[in-house]
């Protein structure tokens, strides 16, 4: 059996790639995808821990994380479409005037 450490390495690396993408990119759609990547990294670690501790509750949490991810993607993309209708761009720094 694969040691649990390796699952920790894999999901930490995936999570860090997601954070790097959020910091590095400016396209809102890519930012959403990086958020999905981070949620998936946490899901992977939850499943690995549930298997190693023989506890099915963690896999139920993965359901709830998937649910939040689906709701977030639907509402976020709807907001993006609405913003795009006002000003046709998806660059995140164009929208910093929402602060005022």
């Amino acid at each position, binding site marked *: *059996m*694969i040691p649990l*450490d390796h699952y*920790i390495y*894999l999901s*930490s*690396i*995936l*999570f860090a*790639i*997601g*954070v*790097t993408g959020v*910091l*590095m*990119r*400016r*396209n809102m*759609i*890519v930012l959403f*995808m*990086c958020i*999905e*990547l981070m949620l*998936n990294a946490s*899901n*992977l670690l939850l*499943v690995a821990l549930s*298997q*190693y*501790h*023989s*506890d*099915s*509750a963690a*896999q*139920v949490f*993965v*359901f*709830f994380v*998937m*649910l*939040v*991810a*689906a*709701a*977030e*993607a*639907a*509402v976020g*993309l*709807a*907001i*993006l*479409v*609405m913003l795009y209708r006002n000003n*046709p*761009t*998806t*660059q995140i720094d164009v929208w910093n005037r929402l602060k005022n």
Partner: protein
Amino acid sequence: MEILFYLLAIVAIASALGVVLSKNPVYSVLSLICTFFAIAAQYILLNAQFLAAVHIIVYAGAIMVLFLFVIMLLNLNILVETQRFTTARLTAAFTGGLLCLVLIAALRSAGDIKAANPANAKIGLIENLGMTLFNQYLLPFEVSSLLFLAAMVGAVVLAKKEIA
């Protein structure tokens, strides 16, 4: 089995890097789908077959189709993205690397991470998951249906054209 794990890990990390580094959003979506399939295969290796099926249906089937629809509808595949300064990009990469190290250190020192009891292959089957979900977590399940309803109504209201 071990070789399969490392192969899938390499595929997942490489396509995750593809998501972040590719200029065209369509390529990002395709790399993300590749990552999702690699993660679903990891679930199967972990004996979580039902979760793997749900993962493919929800992510590759629903969420990524939504992303592709938005990209195609808004014609974003021809859009040129302004890049951040090189310093900012390097700082982002450095921060991500540091975060990775901190996460690994914190998770590894979190306590005894040896397998508590002999691995039970039946954990990930739908029978066990259903028992847990509908006995222990019935209220969160019902609340989540409410969340979905709110998200659906919100998405429709936000994306609707305003009637003048």
